[in-house]
């Protein structure tokens, strides 16, 4: 979503993005002229008249599970967004019985929060697991 019109979205998709991604952008490119939606989400820059780089993960119940906002010069890490979605999905599927520690990816160990885990995270989670 940006303040550009849907016509500009079409031009961008057809003339540039379709050269990066076969078939073009697979998801809807939304137009937010005037930044109304961006204002409600707290990411519209009124001085510049543009949206900043806000990214929201919304679950199937319509609840915001996470967000990230960057100023325009720095781009995002899509892999990290996907990792977070996978983690939120895992937690949701476990009905809240599991939590994903720092650096978690699918297949890696989760934590089972509860009285037995208090003070014992150091025994099961090591700093090296952040990157392995």
């Amino acid at each position: 979503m940006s303040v550009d019109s849907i016509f500009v979205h079409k031009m961008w998709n057809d003339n540039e993005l379709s050269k990066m991604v076969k078939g073009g952008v697979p998801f809807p490119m939304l137009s937010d002229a005037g930044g109304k939606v961006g204002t409600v989400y707290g990411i519209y820059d009124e001085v510049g008249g543009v949206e900043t780089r806000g990214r929201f993960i919304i679950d199937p119940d319509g609840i915001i599970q996470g967000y990230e906002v960057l100023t325009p010069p720095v781009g995002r890490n899509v892999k990290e967004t996907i990792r977070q979605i996978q983690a939120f999905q895992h937690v949701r599927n476990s009905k809240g019985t599991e939590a994903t520690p720092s650096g978690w990816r699918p297949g890696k160990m989760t934590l089972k929060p509860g009285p037995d885990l208090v003070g014992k995270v150091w025994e099961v989670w090591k700093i090296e697991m952040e990157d392995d």
Partner: protein
Amino acid sequence: MPEELKVGCARPVGASSDEEKKPVITGGPEEKKTEKGVPMIKVGQKAPDFTAPAYHNGKFINMKLSDHLGKWVVLCFYPGDFTFV
């Protein structure tokens, strides 16, 4: 399915946030608000609903966030077309 927009020469109106129609925000006195009186976005709380025109698979459509309840959604804002994301 989202409705398809009939686009002629007129420029379709921009997005509309369903939240801004509400008179004023409920909530306790401590609730933080932005300069425009909009409540601060918080994790664990409902995503403000909106309807916006969109370009999707060669068509112009109207997209409503709440039509996607039941699915995971990534809502991504960026400064402008023809820049990076």
